[in-house]
């Protein structure tokens, strides 16, 4: 196989890695939008909280001398999911529920305020410096000729693909098979009617925020370990990118968020690989503008029907 092909494959792999995590974060945006029609701009910050929670779990366990890899991973994922979900639930309770039923812009502004609050809260509590996060899974495969260009695929990248895939499958099963999932779908269709038919819509909305936060926590743990560095500012850009992914795929649609995330990741990698790293963000946000102008419902989104 030619060098060009290896290079292309490497860039696709890089793109899929970053795209998977965009997808995980984008789910949080898309689910909340699907049910209450609001963009939760604090969601990027929830992802950052997930990274910090994982860091504390790992640091705490290291302090008591636990160093078995599976145990550390399970503890980091489960505790980070629990802590971050608690944040997701409280954010909805504090910042959005009291404003529900009013103008759509009001919770949006509350979300921006929440985002600024969370970022500065972590900055004040933990300092603004980069914190080095332990990389639990190191090493990887090298594919291709020893001299010349070869593909590297780290174990961590594989873990990211696998965990993302498992999370998505679990979410799809939950939405399509469980009782609560059915309630979620009913609320997404018509929240007023669902309420009349005896579905506890407040509970459904809370669950939506908890699920979004849990997936953001998964992304936070994965990316924290992959890059090895966390800081209070990482939620902002990640949130914007994930929002772009959600819009690209069609906001409100879960498969759309996954597709949008992957497409965005690959587009970034190809731009950086074949043109220039400088144009990476230009392409991401250019795509956002393009989608908003020419395909306002995104790739898999349903055209919004005005409810009467």
């Amino acid at each position, binding site marked *: 196989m030619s060098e060009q092909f290896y290079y292309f494959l490497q860039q696709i792999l890089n793109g899929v890695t970053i795209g998977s995590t965009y997808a995980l974060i984008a789910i949080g945006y898309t689910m909340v939008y699907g049910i209450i029609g609001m963009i939760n701009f604090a969601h990027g910050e929830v992802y950052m909280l997930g990274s910090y929670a994982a860091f504390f779990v790992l640091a705490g366990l290291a302090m008591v001398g636990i160093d078995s890899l599976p145990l550390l991973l399970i503890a980091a994922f489960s505790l980070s999911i629990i802590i971050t979900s608690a944040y997701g639930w409280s954010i909805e309770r504090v910042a959005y529920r009291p404003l529900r039923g009013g103008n759509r812009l009001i919770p949006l502004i509350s979300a921006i305020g929440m985002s600024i609050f969370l970022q500065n809260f972590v900055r004040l509590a933990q300092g603004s410096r980069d914190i080095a996060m332990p990389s639990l899974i190191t090493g990887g495969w090298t594919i291709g000729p020893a001299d010349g260009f070869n593909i590297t695929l*780290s174990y961590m990248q594989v873990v990211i693909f696998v965990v993302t895939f498992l999370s998505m499958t679990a979410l799809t099963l939950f939405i399509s098979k469980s009782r609560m999932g059915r309630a979620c779908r009913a609320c997404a269709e018509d929240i007023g009617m669902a309420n009349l038919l005896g579905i506890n819509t407040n509970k459904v909305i809370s669950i939506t925020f908890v699920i979004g936060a849990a997936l953001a926590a998964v992304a936070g743990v994965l990316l924290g370990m992959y*890059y090895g560095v966390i800081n209070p500012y990482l939620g902002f850009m990640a949130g914007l990118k994930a929002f772009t992914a959600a819009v690209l795929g069609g906001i409100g649609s879960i498969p759309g968020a996954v597709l949008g995330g992957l497409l965005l990741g690959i587009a970034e990698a190809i731009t950086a690989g074949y043109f220039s790293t400088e144009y990476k963000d230009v392409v991401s946000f250019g795509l956002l503008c393009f989608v908003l102008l020419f395909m306002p419902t995104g790739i898999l989104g349903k055209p919004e029907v005005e409810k009467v």
Partner: protein
Amino acid sequence: MFIYHELCQDCEPDPSQTSRNPPCSSNILSVTRKLTQFAKGGFTSALYSQEHGEGEMNKWTKTAASVAAAMTLFGASTLAQAADTIKIAMAGPVTGPVAQYGDMQFTGGNAAIEMINAAGGINGKQLEGVIYDDACDPKQAVAVANKIVNDGAQFVLGHLCSSATQPASDIYEDEGILMITAASTSPDITARGYELIFRTIGLDSDQGPTASNYIIDHVKPKKVAVIHDKQQYGEGIASSVKAGLEAAKIPVVAFEGVTAGDKDFSALIAKLKKLNVDFVYYGGYHPELGLLLRQSKEKGLTAQFMGPEGVGNKDISAIAGEASEGLLVTLPKKYDLLPENKAVVDHIVAKGGDATGPFVWTGYAAVQAISQGLKAGKTDPMDLAEYLRATPTNTVMGELAWDKKGDLKGFEFGVFTWHKDGTSSQN
């Protein structure tokens, strides 16, 4: 706007005010500054307008007068305070991703102030250091500079990042405040013919040639990539290195910018691998280079990396781990190892500080330069600036002399090898 406009006219009868006040403008910043100046100097004129002007005054002027009266009380209290201390404002990042460098500068500045005060101060007056946080952000730096003006400080140590120093220095020059930066290396800062802007560090245009000469003489790479963070400091120094290498016919096969704050460089690294570069120069700060080093090691890019003093920080070892071993960095000399500086090192260590950072010493020297001028009786910033340009000053960095632009004469960077434990050794 109306209030301020009327207020400005109120100032006119006072002759001491008219000469100092710039003409009225609708610029909100200058208006705020004017208000404070008025409050400090315009005690009599404020009283005058309250007692005698009642009849002719319209509603706006009344409001203006009461605001002025309130401000006068405030101004009087700050004046009383300023009488026994000389305020030195220290501006730099207390927060934000490069707060470490701010720490270094503040450690040095505070140590100098404490030691000068302990030795009797300036002709009986004590120095007072006040820290201002600009978070290395140009917008915040302007806000901080205005605050410093309003707080009545006449001497500034700072700012730190070149992109923050540049807009802030415009304000200091306009307001007659002397500024010495201990860390901003962008040549543009002193290239604008300003009279009150100095630095105690070299320029990118010096640091670049130091780096490119070292690369040409010692590393002799076959293919070089030059990467930068698209900021004033990083891109400036990267361009200078690129020019130096190209002049020596060393091929620079890639010249690209990354976004500060970016976390994923895998696509860029794959590209560098494909181009087969054996040397990478990075112009920027440690958070990005740390990740670049770490990801390069994981992805099997075996090039030698080099960076400017903005990456020479213990945190790069925390971020990059083993991948930071062997990184080349251009840094100012290690003043903490000079025997004549032992007393200063001891003082800083006794206070629980870290005396190893480069800006500790440039910051210390900047305060020393200000205090030497003050001791010579040059209490006006303009006189002090004249004095610094004319008189070489003895500091912890040795004897410093400034040229007409405010740059140091003969400042030299050295090339150091970085180690994974966060230390460095001179090559």
